[in-house]
């Protein structure tokens, strides 16, 4: 019995179930060469051994493609292999930025790109705002002493697990002309509303669906933050005769702020990347009212008969730069919090 406990199988694997046993054996066999290696290169340099596999995959399937992507962006033509593509310098970028006025997409050579930029910006602002408000509200409610808290948490988290396509399909089924929502509206005596044909409604719904689908994740982050606020601060505040609203503004919010920043930045980054959901739900329409940057890139690279990899790559490099900046901002924000 005691020896069963010490069996590495039991220690090592836990939830992974039946896979655990052979895996543990493999891991044990790996230990011999690893030990020898450690003796050879020393304890501290083992870090490189650990980082190597991931780095190899990473270089091959992320870093190299990013480089190729960049090469695409400075070449033209319809060829697929970089060797088949003539060098054009910054021409693709010049196309993207060839605008009469940056404020008026229709004056741009690549007007869809700029519409994508503006739509994405607008969508992101709405989405982040709504996301923060609703995940905050939900986190606060879930943080109360509620019966069945675990269940409710799971309920709100559950859509996070759905693929974007399923999410969009589900809501399309509800929002279309003959969908559930219109059925409800008409049965209440209202008129049908073409939710996905009216530009403002369409924007509203993609924000709504996006919040619906991802709120659970952010709620958990905020919930973790709320739970990290020591209960005795609230008790101290109560002893200090603090009114409720003041407690929220002066204690809860400031102490939740680091988590809020995480939520804002993550939601921002996700917002900029949005594609699948909107693609399936509205197809970028009506008109180009919900056409997003990534959608533009996708369409340029794939859906057109002449698959314009060069232009798409240039747009994706621009997008990548923006995303990188946002990510660094997130990092800086969390650093500052770490120092705090």
């Amino acid at each position: 019995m005691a020896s069963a406990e010490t069996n590495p199988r039991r220690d090592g694997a836990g939830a992974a179930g039946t896979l655990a046993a052979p895996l543990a054996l493999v891991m044990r066999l790996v230990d011999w060469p690893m030990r020898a290696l450690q003796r050879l290169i020393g304890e501290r340099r083992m870090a490189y051994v650990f980082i190597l596999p991931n780095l190899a995959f990473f270089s091959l399937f992320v870093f190299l493609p990013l480089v190729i992507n960049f090469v695409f962006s400075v070449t033209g033509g319809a060829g697929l292999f970089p060797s088949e593509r003539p060098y054009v310098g910054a021409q693709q970028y010049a196309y993207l930025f060839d605008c009469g006025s940056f404020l008026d997409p229709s004056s741009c050579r690549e007007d869809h790109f700029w519409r994508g930029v503006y739509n994405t910006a607008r969508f992101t602002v709405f989405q982040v705002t709504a996301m923060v408000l609703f995940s905050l509200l939900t986190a606060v409610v879930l943080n109360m002493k509620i019966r069945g808290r675990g269940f409710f948490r799971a309920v709100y988290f559950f859509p996070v697990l759905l693929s974007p396509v399923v999410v969009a399909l589900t809501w399309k089924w509800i929002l279309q002309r003959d969908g559930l929502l219109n059925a409800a509206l008409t049965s209440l005596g209202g008129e049908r509303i073409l939710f996905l044909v009216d530009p403002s409604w369409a924007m509203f719904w993609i924000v709504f669906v996006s919040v619906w689908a991802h709120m659970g994740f952010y709620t958990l982050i905020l919930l973790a933050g709320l739970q990290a606020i020591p209960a005795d601060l609230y008790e101290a505040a109560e002893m200090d005769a603090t009114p409720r609203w003041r407690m929220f503004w002066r204690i809860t919010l400031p102490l939740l702020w680091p988590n809020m920043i995480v939520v804002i930045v993550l939601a921002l980054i996700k917002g900029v990347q949005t594609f699948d959901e909107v693609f399936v739900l509205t197809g970028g329409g009506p008109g180009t009212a919900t056409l997003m940057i990534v959608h533009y890139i996708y369409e340029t690279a794939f859906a057109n008969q002449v698959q314009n990899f060069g232009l798409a790559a240039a747009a994706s490099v621009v997008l990548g730069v923006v995303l990188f900046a946002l990510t660094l901002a997130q990092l800086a924000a969390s650093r500052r919090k770490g120092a705090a």
Partner: protein
Amino acid sequence: MAGLKLSAVRKAYGATTVLHGIDLDVADGEFVVFVGPSGCGKSTLLRSIAGLEEITGGAIAIDGADVTHLPASERGLAMVFQSYALYPHMSVYANMAFALENMGFKRDEIDKRVRRAAEMLRLTDYLERKPRALSGGQRQRVAIGRAIVRDPKIFLFDEPLSNLDAELRVATRKELAALHGEIGGTMIYVTHDQVEAMTLADRIVVLRAGRIEQIGTPLELYNRPDNLFVAGFIGSPRMNLLPGRVTAAGKVALGEGGHEIACATGDLAAGAPVTAGIRPEHLELAPEGQGLPLTIELVERLGGESYLYGSAAGLPQITLKLDGQSEHERGHSVPLAFPQQKLHLFDEAGQAIRP
């Protein structure tokens, strides 16, 4: 400043009762300390007084006014938490001013009060700092300052010193005593530190499993514990508690060895099982050849005093405290004398037999 009256205060969490009817009168300006083993309900009682817990039965009156159903914010008490519960995002000044702002004080009145308290607590230089930039002792003082500015009816403290290191604890303890001398408020203080309780309290309340075991001044508890529990709990190192049996009026035989000592036995009949108690500092070395022979198992010399731990046939380990640096070594045997006037006797139910 105000008095406090608890009448039959009960508190239950679901089916488990934590406080079984506590009656207590605290006079205006008194410093009362709650002690008791972990989990006995000290914090619960304090929080019930504060209004942070709703009590299940009984009544609480402050200055004669019933506050049983008043929320914490309206009882006018101040509390210093074990964790200090300082608002980490506010400066020391803002921490102290927060309650006053809530109470609608004018800006300059707030300023005046905060600065006065800061001065009293030697915090004036730190008013703009955030709590995380303060040392443990300073934080502790801020927590007290936050309580002082409000001029509360009663101060409540829940183990306020337990997060400080030994040296700081001693220093702060003395400061607290001085503070009480100065502002003279009614204070209720929870601790499990012997020394704090003995040195700070006007009266100590010993709690055990939700019941009061004894209330009294520190020396009353030390000199005349009502029962075995209080005897064992108050005093450090613990009182030696030795099982025995009354052999005759005024005579008790200890343990299996049957070493007989003289001791006031009250009304107890011969043969009654008793427990004799004597503090390590009260045990004396008997002249050679007399007394209970104790085989020394361990000697600890602290410089100014020494502890001898030893065993005697049929008795639990006996601790003996000697002044100075004892010469005795492990394995030696020393004869013990039990000075009669320092002996405590407890009957089978653990109640003290008073001479």
